[in-house]
């Protein structure tokens, strides 16, 4: 007999990393609304889905700080207090947004605009440099489906998908069979450029162990040698000239090459200039063959955050509304820099944990001022918050849209009911916006 206590939902999209795998199968216990089985997801995706089940770390009631301790409160009191804090602030910061859906991100833009605040997402500390480089020199890119079907040369530069995007290799880039790559892995040459001997490097055909922090030098030398310039040095960034020549030959002879790059390029010492040079190399290789480049975005919807912010304001991150219109300048309006200079006097963090990722000095300044957090689980950031809103997790407990790392929008599915009292990020933000409008109206 069919067990009717369990419901299986097919084609679920994994809301964890930028690969947005869309083939998960999730078993739900209908009576308790808990996830009891997951198929097709990788370890990290599975962990995220299971973490939505009730646990002591999950917030289920709005919390407000009283006598230095977070205590339970009602949603109305929490919304009221949050609105008051934000209205009073002269330079509020709205940060996070990369692990939620596009509708909530849109509400974030609206809130930042009515507050005259600063709006930023996690690209500020991960792939922001990629965006800067793209603005400087443009970018030739494509979708993961194209790479899967066509690429015969795959280069992973400064990224380790075996750990960070585990199913990327199986679904799009390394082992998968494509329309023109019928033999899967055997039809592709895989090169890893990384100072570390990562698991991705161990299963590659060639591993180039560039010296740490010297990626720029290597990129620059490859570009000069692609142009046929004979260099004076025998070894560049720890790599011999012969090895570089060998790689250039492989690049030029390939039919369709792609560079996937990660934070090894964006967050090592030359930051956006590494990406700038990698994009220029890609462009120049198109004189010989088809070559494209794609960043390995981490958070599942950081690409969505950049896209939604851009279609609303013209800019992807680090946006200041203090003059009533959007202005953009990473370094000036980016969260870490603002916090380091102690310019922020109140913050609203949505689906993010800056306390674990930002430099210590900036976190000290973040905690000095009122802090509102919209977050399903306890995090180092929420532990120091003045107000915490519990939420339904997007892609598990509510629907929404997310953008894959290659800018493909996918509709997230709701697989189970959220805990009682938990609203979606978008609804909480809308309630705060309505309250602010109401309070401002009263004042006038």
């Amino acid at each position: 007999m069919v067990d009717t206590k369990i419901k299986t939902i097919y084609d679920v999209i994994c809301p964890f990393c930028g690969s947005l795998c869309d083939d998960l199968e999730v078993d739900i216990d209908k009576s308790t609304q808990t996830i009891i089985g997951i198929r097709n997801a990788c370890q990290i995706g599975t962990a995220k889905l299971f973490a939505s089940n009730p646990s002591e770390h999950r917030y289920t009631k709005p919390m407000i700080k009283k006598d230095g301790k977070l205590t339970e409160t009602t949603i109305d009191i929490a919304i009221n207090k949050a609105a008051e804090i934000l209205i009073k602030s002269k330079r509020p910061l709205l940060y996070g947004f990369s692990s939620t859906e596009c509708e909530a991100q849109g509400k974030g833009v609206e809130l930042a605009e009515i507050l005259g605040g600063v709006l930023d997402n996690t690209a500020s500390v991960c792939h922001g440099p990629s965006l800067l480089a793209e603005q400087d020199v443009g970018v030739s890119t494509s979708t993961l489906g194209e790479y899967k079907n066509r690429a015969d040369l795959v280069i992973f530069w400064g990224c380790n998908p075996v750990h960070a995007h585990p199913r990327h290799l199986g679904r799009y880039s390394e082992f998968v069979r494509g329309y023109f790559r019928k033999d899967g892995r055997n039809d592709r040459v895989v090169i890893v450029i990384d100072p570390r001997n990562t698991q991705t490097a161990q299963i590659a055909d060639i591993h180039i162990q560039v010296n740490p922090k010297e990626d720029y030098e290597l990129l620059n030398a490859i570009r000069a040698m692609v142009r046929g310039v004979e260099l004076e040095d025998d070894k560049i960034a720890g790599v011999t000239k012969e090895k570089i020549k060998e790689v250039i030959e492989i690049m030029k002879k390939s039919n369709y090459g792609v560079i996937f790059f990660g934070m090894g390029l964006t967050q090592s010492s030359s930051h956006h200039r590494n990406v700038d040079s990698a994009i220029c190399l890609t462009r120049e290789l198109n004189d010989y063959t088809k070559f494209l480049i794609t960043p390995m975005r981490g958070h599942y919807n950081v690409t969505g955050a950049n896209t939604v912010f851009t279609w609303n304001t013209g800019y992807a991150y680090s946006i200041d509304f203090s003059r009533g219109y959007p202005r953009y300048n990473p370094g000036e309006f980016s969260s870490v820099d603002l916090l380091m200079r102690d310019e922020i006097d109140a913050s609203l963090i949505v689906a993010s944990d800056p306390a674990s990722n930002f430099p210590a000095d900036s976190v000290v300044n973040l905690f000095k001022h009122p802090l509102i957090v919209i977050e399903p689980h306890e995090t180092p950031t929420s532990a120091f918050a003045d107000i915490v809103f519990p939420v339904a997790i997007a892609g598990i407990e509510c629907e929404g849209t997310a953008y894959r790392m290659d800018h493909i929008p996918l509709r997230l599915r709701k697989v189970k009911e959220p805990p009682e009292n938990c609203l979606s990020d978008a609804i909480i933000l809308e309630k705060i916006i309505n309250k602010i409008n109401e309070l401002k109206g009263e004042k006038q």
Partner: protein
Amino acid sequence: MGNQTVKLGDIFDIQGKSTKENLRVVIEGNLENVKRIGEKMSSGEIIINGNIGMHLGNQMTGGKIIVNGNADDWAGAMLKGGELEINGNAGNYVGAAYRGFWKGMEDGIIRVHGKIGREAMLWARNSKGENKWPILYCNDAGSFLGIHNHGGTIIVNGDTDVYPGADQAWGNIIVNGKILKKLASYKKIGEKKEISLPNGEIIKGNYIEYSGDHSVKKETNGRLFLKL
């Protein structure tokens, strides 16, 4: 201030008269958080006694600004004319293009007597036809000095950090001290006892002449001179 508008008089004590020509403004105090002084200025003179915040004299087309202190990032960004003199240090992106702009400093002179930060003169661009020669003098310089340079001139009296002239298409960079690390794509082409700059200035001394950046072009008019 933040999302509020305040009156200048609430923050500064203001004295003097305004005139249409030869206006001279003297600003005293610690102005580290004051941004965009002298933005798009076209004539006159500003003297700042103290440290100054970001975007000092950005996009100015004429006149002169003197800072007796340090300047923060983007000092003289996208300068189109005039003169900027900083007697202390300056931050990152001195005379640089703003994000996404392909034309940075187009004309004018920046002199920094102290150190400057990263990526100074990013996307600087000269114009032979209009006789425009953007030029930067400084003491020590940070990394990626003159990156994507398209005709700017940079004279460094001290040392530079890594990769001066990265992606330089053409232009001149003269370093009188040491270079922490030069890119492999620069090639030695000889030695020079006299360098004549496009603005007519002549610099004497013993220099090694490198051409580059060859990652941009196989044959290039970009030059890096390092004092022997």
